[in-house]
């Protein structure tokens, strides 16, 4: 079983109130020097059999139609090394 990871992030121009809250909390806890935080989602897809180019294309399709909303989000797809 191979694993494909899809990371979904809000587009840079979209406000991320959760990331903003985390960024504000960090210095309060003594974690200095962090300029900004954006919070995203990570999907782990366990794939049966080999991860072929065809299968990856299929997953990109899923990421575009369901896992992300292209109006506000970008995504990346990568194969996790075994």
């Amino acid at each position, binding site marked *: 079983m191979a694993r494909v990871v899809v990371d979904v992030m809000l587009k840079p*121009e*979209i*406000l991320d*109130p959760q990331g903003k809250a985390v960024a504000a909390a960090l210095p309060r806890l003594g974690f200095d020097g962090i300029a900004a935080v954006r919070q995203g989602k990570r999907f782990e897809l366990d794939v049966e059999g080999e991860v072929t180019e065809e299968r990856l294309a299929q997953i990109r399709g899923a990421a575009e139609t369901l896992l992300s*909303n292209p109006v*506000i989000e970008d995504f990346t797809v990568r194969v996790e090394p075994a």
Partner: protein
Amino acid sequence: MPSRIGVVTFPGSLDDADARRAVGLAGAEPVALWHADADLHGVDAVVLPGGFSYGDYLRCGAIARFAPVMTPLVAAAKDGLPVLGICNGFQVLCESHLLPGALVRNDHRKFACVDQTLVIESTDTAWTSGYTTGQQIVVPLKNGEGGFVADDRTLDALEAEGRVVARYVGDNPNGSYRGIAGVANAAGNVVGLMPHPEHAVELLTGPTTDGLTFFTSVLNGLVGV
């Protein structure tokens, strides 16, 4: 025969019974539509109600968008069927690309339930023709992810084309860009609104009866046809 207005129930829809009650009070026959039934049963208009379809997991409205009922609904909406999406229904319409933009978590990160003043900016839609432009109304607003966002070009276009249906008056309650509470498609038959007009149809249970005009507007339009 009274006009028939469908109200779709998705798993996790919550304000569907309220929307049906509002439809009835406006004088139409409410018709319950089931998400898994790819048939609109000949209704004259459709309301996508509020709630947390599929728990709002993934993104609000993202899973409901792929429900079987949405296939005929999207096709009919493109042909002019009046569709009103309230709150979660608005999110479904955005996810379905019937309306531009998207709805994200409130900027203050809390769920908020308040009686909200809105100004009606466009009366050129199927659902707002009974209001006057600039009219202020008070209806409940209750959501956790009600911040309307879109890129500047889209927002400019919406404003230029008169497709901003309603805007928040006073403090922006959820961080919506340009205070936008509701938008319409170019034809004006599809409207998405974050506040809840169906909760302002009886003085006994709502802050006002200002919301009823959404439902009477569409009825008057249907009778006129």
